Each structure stands twice: as C-alpha cells, then as structure tokens.
C-alpha cells in the first residue's frame, strides 16, 4: 500500500528566509509525486508534480522539489518565503495504475513571521 509521511506538523520561518518541507513516501513502483497548498477555507492548489525525468522539479510561486529515490523523499523548497506563503502544504503520491487516486500526507502548516 502506498503512504506518505510529512514529519513536520508545523513550521515557522521568518519572511525572506529559506524553506524546506519534508515528505517521505512508500510505494512499490515508480511513484507519481505531488505537492499541493491549501489556504484557509480553500481547496487544494497544485504546486508541482513529478513523474519522470529530471529529479529537480520547478513549480509555481517559486517552489521547487527534489525527488530522491534512495531516500524515498520528495522535499519541497523555496529560497525566500513571502508572508503570502503561509498555508497548509500537502504531499501526495499517486500511481498510473490507480488513475487519479492520490494518497495524501497529513500536511505541514507553515507560519511566516514578519
């Protein structure tokens, strides 16, 4: 069975500081990996996704993520955080054979200090 672990429930960073959100997955085959962001009262917005090829993936809003197969990780990074980045972030894993079914982690809440 596929699973996702986001070890950090809550992270606080200062505006302008760098950010890294951790994600570890468990899946038997080649995973399809996603990062989503959810603002209060909003649905989920896709930040980026990885299927194959270059292991460093660029997304929207200046985010990037690196797939490391040996560590079963897909960590999300941003070099300089803005106050508007405060939200909840979810990592998810999917598989082509499960066509559209994604398994999500429990999320990491990001607080940005002025």
């Amino acid at each position, binding site marked *: 069975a596929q699973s*996702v672990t986001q070890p950090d429930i809550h992270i606080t960073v200062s505006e302008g500081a760098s950010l890294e959100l951790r994600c570890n997955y468990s899946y038997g085959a080649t995973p*399809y990996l*996603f990062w*989503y962001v959810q603002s209060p*009262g*909003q*649905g*989920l*917005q*896709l930040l980026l*996704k990885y*299927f194959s090829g270059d292991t460093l993936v660029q997304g929207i809003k200046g985010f990037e993520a690196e797939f490391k197969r040996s560590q079963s990780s897909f960590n999300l990074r941003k070099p300089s955080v803005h106050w508007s980045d405060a939200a909840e972030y*979810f990592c*998810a894993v*999917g598989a*082509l054979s*499960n*066509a*559209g*079914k*994604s*398994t*999500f*982690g*429990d*999320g990491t809440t990001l607080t940005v200090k002025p």
Partner: protein
Amino acid sequence: DAGVTQSPTHLIKTRGQQVTLRCSPISGHKSVSWYQQVLGQGPQFIFQYYEKEERGRGNFPDRFSARQFPNYSSELNVNALLLGDSALYLCASSYSGVLAGKDTQYFGPGTRLTVL
C-alpha cells in the same frame, strides 16, 4: 473559465440522515474524484469516476456512494450519517483521470459537512 464548483458550501445534518453533495467539473474534464478531509488530516480518496464509470474506490463503507452524469457532473451520497462523517468533502476534476504528463487534477473549494 469557471473552476470546479461544489454545492452546497456548508451543510448541517443530524445523525442517521442522508446527504447529497454536488460537483461540477471544469468544462472539458471527464474525470471526477471525491476526497474526504477530516480536520487536521490530509484528504482521503473516496471515489473516482471517468466517463460515468467508477474507476476507483477508497476504503469507505457502503454508506458512501457516488455517480457521474452525462454532463460529467457528479454527486456524492452518504447515508445513515455518523458524527465521524463530519469533514470537508473535496471534489477534483481532470481531463482523463490519469495524472501523468500534462493532465492535472484541479480541486474545488469543498463542502463542509457537520453532523450533529
């Protein structure tokens, strides 16, 4: 273009009642998925439909059912509501439901269900 829309926005029911949630996908999208998000947790997959056929089902009891209509909109039904069914129910649409390549899953704002 309109995004994924869901109705109603909020809903309050009592235990034992039945509820129907509705979802309209983005125009041109043929796949709809439903997720349940309990407070403090990530979304959990309930169903996926493509071209009116069920393509996937998560680990939910038979009290949960869904269908997709010829216009690709979808309904999620939950019977015999329990307190534990209180959650945000999210609908997502994509063109094919196969999320490789350029296809992307877009989420609606959700329906907040409270069961008293």
